[in-house]
């Protein structure tokens, strides 16, 4: 597998970089935040992404998508990360499309995928229940009820949860919290009876929600995949989440780094640019190395997922761990190297620091993924 981009992939990357730079600069996120925008993202912008085919990148052509694969979508996410663009790319185009294509039945696919590919259907993955990523520590109960299921529980930190048309809910249909077996995935309309959604305002100005399920009644047709075997879908789904988010984090980290290096060249103290000081040079050079390693890890993970490679899970955890550490480091150093101006809300570098922290916690932080990498490696 090559780690350099083919011409078509390079074109996608360049298109995405240009698109987000022109239509969704960091100022767009600030405006959404300051306006307390109800959606939390720009619907017209999302429609344009739908027209470009990005919403349906992972949707097979038979359902109106591009069938381009995770590498292509990862490159778009990297571009979005450059400007911290708040979009449904991760929750809908990556996770929603992946869940439906990996586990959906024919009816579920033909009902939802065409609308998703057009950018007209928003999804969200309702997984987490505690303050830390723990994909099998699920207590939300799916009890068999009159030929269907009855859903009770509470989900937190559901990205795009407050606006999703359709929720993918991970619930426990048997076994104990912590068991890998006994999980079932359900498709639940966001406005179903018994669903209560509370938007949470996150430090990075992105969208998330706490969602309660009180006796939500579901038919058999709501089951996505097989009953009790949800982890078989959830694991590859989370691999994609990690690789895709790592790609977005790579874009954000690279942008924050380049802005910081530029500031080191521009800012003068003691009559010289502060970038001439070795104390700053060495730290900048070390950050450069971390970005280069992260880029290789992200490309390897996305490529491995598309190829269905044996070590895709390990590479996904590797990419998430590296991206988490690199973005964390650069977010912090970015503010420090900008000095006082970096502490102001007016300057944009702080947006990167905030996003780094939220992105790191999403789908498992670096420590989680080091542990998973070790476990997959047999130690």
């Amino acid at each position, binding site marked *: 597998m090559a780690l350099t981009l083919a011409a078509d992939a390079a074109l996608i990357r360049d298109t995405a970089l240009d698109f987000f730079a022109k239509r969704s600069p960091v100022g767009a996120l600030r405006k959404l935040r300051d306006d307390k925008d109800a959606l939390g993202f720009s619907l017209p912008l999302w429609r344009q992404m739908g027209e470009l085919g990005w919403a349906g990148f992972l949707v097979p052509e038979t359902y109106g998508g591009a069938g381009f694969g995770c590498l292509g979508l990862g490159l778009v996410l990297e571009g979005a990360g450059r400007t911290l663009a708040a979009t449904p790319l991760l929750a809908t185009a990556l996770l929603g499309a992946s869940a439906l294509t990996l586990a959906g039945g024919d009816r579920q696919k033909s009902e939802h995928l065409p609308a998703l590919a057009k950018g007209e259907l928003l999804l969200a993955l309702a997984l987490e229940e505690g303050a830390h990523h723990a994909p099998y520590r699920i207590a939300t109960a799916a009890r068999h009820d009159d030929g269907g299921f009855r859903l009770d529980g509470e989900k937190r930190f559901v990205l795009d949860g407050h606006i999703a048309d359709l929720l993918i809910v991970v619930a426990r249909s048997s076994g104990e919290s912590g068991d890998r077996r006994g999980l079932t995935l359900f498709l639940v309309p966001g406005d179903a009876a018994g669903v209560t959604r509370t938007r949470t305002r996150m430090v990075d100005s992105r969208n998330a929600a706490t969602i309660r399920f009180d006796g939500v009644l579901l038919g058999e047709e709501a089951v996505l995949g097989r009953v009790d075997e949800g982890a078989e879908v959830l694991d590859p789904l989370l691999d994609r989440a990690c690789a895709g988010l790592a790609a977005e984090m790579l874009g954000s980290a690279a942008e924050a780094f380049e802005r910081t290096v530029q500031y080191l060249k521009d800012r003068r103290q003691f009559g*010289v640019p502060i970038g001439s000081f070795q104390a700053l040079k060495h730290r900048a050079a070390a950050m450069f190395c971390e970005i280069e390693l992260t*880029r290789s890890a992200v490309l390897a993970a996305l490529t491995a997922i598309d190829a269905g490679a044996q070590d895709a899970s390990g590479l996904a955890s590797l990419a998430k761990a*590296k991206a988490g550490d690199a973005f964390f480091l650069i977010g912090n150093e970015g503010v420090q190297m900008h000095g006082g101006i970096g502490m102001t809300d007016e300057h944009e570098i702080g947006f990167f620091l905030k996003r780094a922290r939220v992105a790191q916690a999403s789908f498992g932080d670096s420590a989680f993924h080091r542990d998973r990498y070790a476990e997959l490696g047999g130690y």
Partner: protein
Amino acid sequence: MQDAAAFRAEARAWLEANCPASMRGPMPDDEIVWGGRRASFKNPESKLWLERMAAQGWTVPTWPRAYGGGGLTAAEARILDEEMRRLNCRSPLQSFGIWMLGPVLLEYGSEAQKEAHLPRIARGEIRWCQGYSEPEAGSDLAGLKTRAVLQGEHFLVNGHKIWTSYANLADWIFCLVRTDPTAKKHEGISFLLIDMDDPGIRTRPIQLISGASPFCETFIENVRVPQENLVGGLNNGWTIAKKLLEHERKMIASIGERQRGAERSLSEFAKTYAGTRDRRIADAVLRDRIAQQEIDQRAFQLTQRRAAEEAKGGSPGPASAMFKYYGTELNKRKFELLLQCLGTQALGWEGDGFAADELRITREWLRSKANSIEGGTSEIQLNIIAKRVLGLPD
């Protein structure tokens, strides 16, 4: 790709037919072949293997055939490397001539110099060493003082080099010398090839903290060097010196891969020496540190591969500083972790009570400390990245 498959089949068949049985498998230190006038072969099959590979041009697969190389493309050389790994073939020849001098001679050497030196490097007939550092010129390499004065057809060379790897075993030395003491320090340096078979050259091994003596001091006293041994023109040595350093950094950056200490993984050592719980490493802190190391090593290897694909066999460029910095820091970290895994079993120096592997790891841990010093310190590499990659001002 048809050609690639054909070449792979051809290389595989040749290796299977020609690589002696004892050359397939790990190489003990005392069977490493460095070549040279005084080469000795503890295992006679090492000699046979070297001769067969050299005749094929595969000690230097990408060099032109005219100079003893295999004339392979970068892609073919990668295939050959993969096939050699598949069969566990030993490297037939370790050589600073191959890793460092050869590439710059190919780029800067005269036709006569290429013809005189490259085939002898390829066949392992001449062992080279590197005369760069001096007692007063370490990180500030361009401050070197070894003088070469042109007298008719010869340079008269006087000076004192240090950290010359294996100078006591080498036949020739490629040397940075000062030819114009009045010019700015980078502009008065020349690159000279010197035959060490001269009574004016003395070497003295330096014992290191590891107990080994891989480095020497080299004293050069009134040595006459023919003018034809000047590479790349008078006072033009710094350009060549920097280019050669890029090749050296690339070589040192891969240190973790080449070293034998890694036949057992860190996690296996941890399990053996620090215990397991539920078949995992019992100590969660140690486990996390090992995972961090494994992740960084893998990401680093992926980055080396990506850079090789992007460079398409070209010169490593300033990015070599990143590989030198990161690779050596990783290798040092690996040995720190190995010591943590082995506990007091890694604290022996010699004799009873310690397995040979344990003693070797202790010595290699000490040796690894030099990785981030030799070939330009980590701090110098960071300076190079800051200046030449990031464009930060002086």
